[in-house]
């Protein structure tokens, strides 16, 4: 295992220290329990938005804390859900009296920990709504599993809900935006290489030098198929097809196309992927009106990509274009 880290057990704390030193204008970092919170939280009258999950997916979620996006993020240990005490403290720290939205990725651990946190927060008199994002079409038979995993749509939900909250919308209205993303977002990913969890010290899975895994999860969960590496265009087809087959929208609709890097794949390759994904979306009559290309929801140093498609209506377009000022996503301000 080759990583720019010190001791595996210090990875998360030292990363948080780095974030605190790098972005004091945007965020404050709270330790024990760990959470990253907007420097100006809580904002009176504004719905608070928090998310969280295992570390190792940076910039998600800590890099999305700031004006127009998250009010707080709770980082767990690497690939391990954070705990309810973090979420509870973060919820209290961002509650401006208008309630708090929990954006949760659909993993058993995340869901249960956020559920317990929401119960605890409600017991303290804070109004909480939770929306569970489950957009990974790689998971089949989702009735017989823990369900589809939450992946790329989460980033988009955080941006859109953040903008809605910034506008002064109510908790229900902000949660409605999140539910739209949940309903309209579809993703699928693939890996060229495994990642290595620091405290495990060896790759999560073995992938021979000439093979790839299609449908992988962001913690290295196994995908749909393993096969010989193919040219990028064929890989993009294998990711786009299940997405297109699953979307509840049709030719003529406007979409946001998000090509994500898994952490070890450079931008030059992501643009090659975007090019083909755009072509396929367009061929199906979808109008790509917004996009995002880059490593936003990663899996440590895994090489690979995921593609997310989200139908956009007029309101969502407005929310997407609204100003955002976070360490990892910034425009309009």
């Amino acid at each position, binding site marked *: 295992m080759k990583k720019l880290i010190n001791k595996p057990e210090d990875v998360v704390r030292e990363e948080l220290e780095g974030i605190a030193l790098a972005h004091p204008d945007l965020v404050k970092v709270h330790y024990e*329990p760990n959470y990253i919170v907007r420097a100006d939280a809580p904002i009176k009258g504004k719905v608070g938005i928090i998310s969280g999950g*295992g570390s190792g997916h940076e910039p998600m979620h800590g890099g999305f804390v700031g004006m127009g996006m998250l009010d707080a993020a709770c980082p*767990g*240990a690497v*690939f*391990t*859900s*954070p*705990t*309810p*005490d*973090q979420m509870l403290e973060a919820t209290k720290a961002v509650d401006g009296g208008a309630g708090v939205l929990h954006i949760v990725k659909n*993993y*058993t*651990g995340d869901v*249960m*920990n956020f*559920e*317990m946190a929401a119960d605890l927060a409600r017991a303290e008199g804070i109004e909480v709504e939770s929306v569970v994002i489950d957009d990974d079409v790689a*998971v*089949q*038979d989702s009735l*017989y*599993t*823990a369900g589809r*995993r939450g992946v790329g749509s989460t980033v988009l939900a955080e941006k859109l809900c953040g903008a809605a909250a910034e506008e002064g919308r109510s908790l229900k209205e902000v949660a409605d935006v999140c539910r739209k993303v949940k309903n309209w977002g579809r993703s699928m990913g693939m890996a060229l290489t495994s990642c290595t*969890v620091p*405290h*495990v010290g060896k790759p*999560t899975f073995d992938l021979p030098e000439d093979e790839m895994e299609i449908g992988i*999860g962001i*913690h*290295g*969960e*196994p995908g749909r198929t393993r096969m010989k590496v193919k040219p990028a265009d064929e890989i993009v087809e294998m990711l786009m097809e299940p997405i297109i087959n699953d979307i509840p929208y049709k030719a003529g609709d406007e979409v946001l196309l998000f090509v994500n890097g898994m952490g070890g794949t450079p931008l030059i390759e992501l643009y090659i992927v975007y090019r083909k994904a755009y072509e396929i979306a367009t061929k199906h009559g979808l109008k790509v009106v917004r996009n995002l290309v880059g490593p936003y929801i990663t899996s440590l140093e895994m090489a690979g990509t995921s593609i997310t498609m989200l139908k956009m209506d007029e309101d969502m377009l407005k929310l997407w274009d609204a100003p955002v000022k976070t360490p990892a996503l910034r425009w309009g301000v």
Partner: protein
Amino acid sequence: MQIHRDQIVAWLKAYADLLSEKKEYLTELDAAIGDADHGANMDRGFQAVMKKMDELSNQDIGTIFKTVGMTLLSTVGGAGGPLYATFFLQAGMKATGKMELSLAEWSAALEAAVNGVKMRGKAELGDKTMIDALVPAVQALKTAQENGTSLSEALQQCAHAAEEGMKATIPLVARKGRASYLGERSAGHQDPGATSSYYLLQTAADVWSA
């Protein structure tokens, strides 16, 4: 015969020791069908519990269980964290203010604990989770207690049922938790959560019968 507060403390200590010892094994089980952290997670949680033991050891059983639950809640994370936290929080409700538990009381507490885990995780028997160890164990303990079996014998039957349940997870296809993403490929592996649950009840039998 009663289970005294000090025996509860001894049980938790013995379990923490066992987890330290079995940490790698549990993680290995989790590596096969999950994300290779169950051992580390549980060990971290029970080490945190151990740090609180000095101040805890003269409290009542209800307080001890609830503190264990809250400690696990804030230190374990993942799926195991809230599930084991719920286990102890629910058991704690049944033991509020008590300095010792009768077999019937322990049986009721365990049943409440396991019902809490069921509610939290929404897993059914056969989903290849800790439920597969816990539910038969509760059933065995209840039956033994209703039949008037001795404490030590009842505890052994309970642990034995957990062990059988744990082993029964091997051929199963997971339908809950991270292992469920594997589909058919999850068959042939023993569930890590069922294993740590079996350890918990086996430790109780060993410590309380000694």
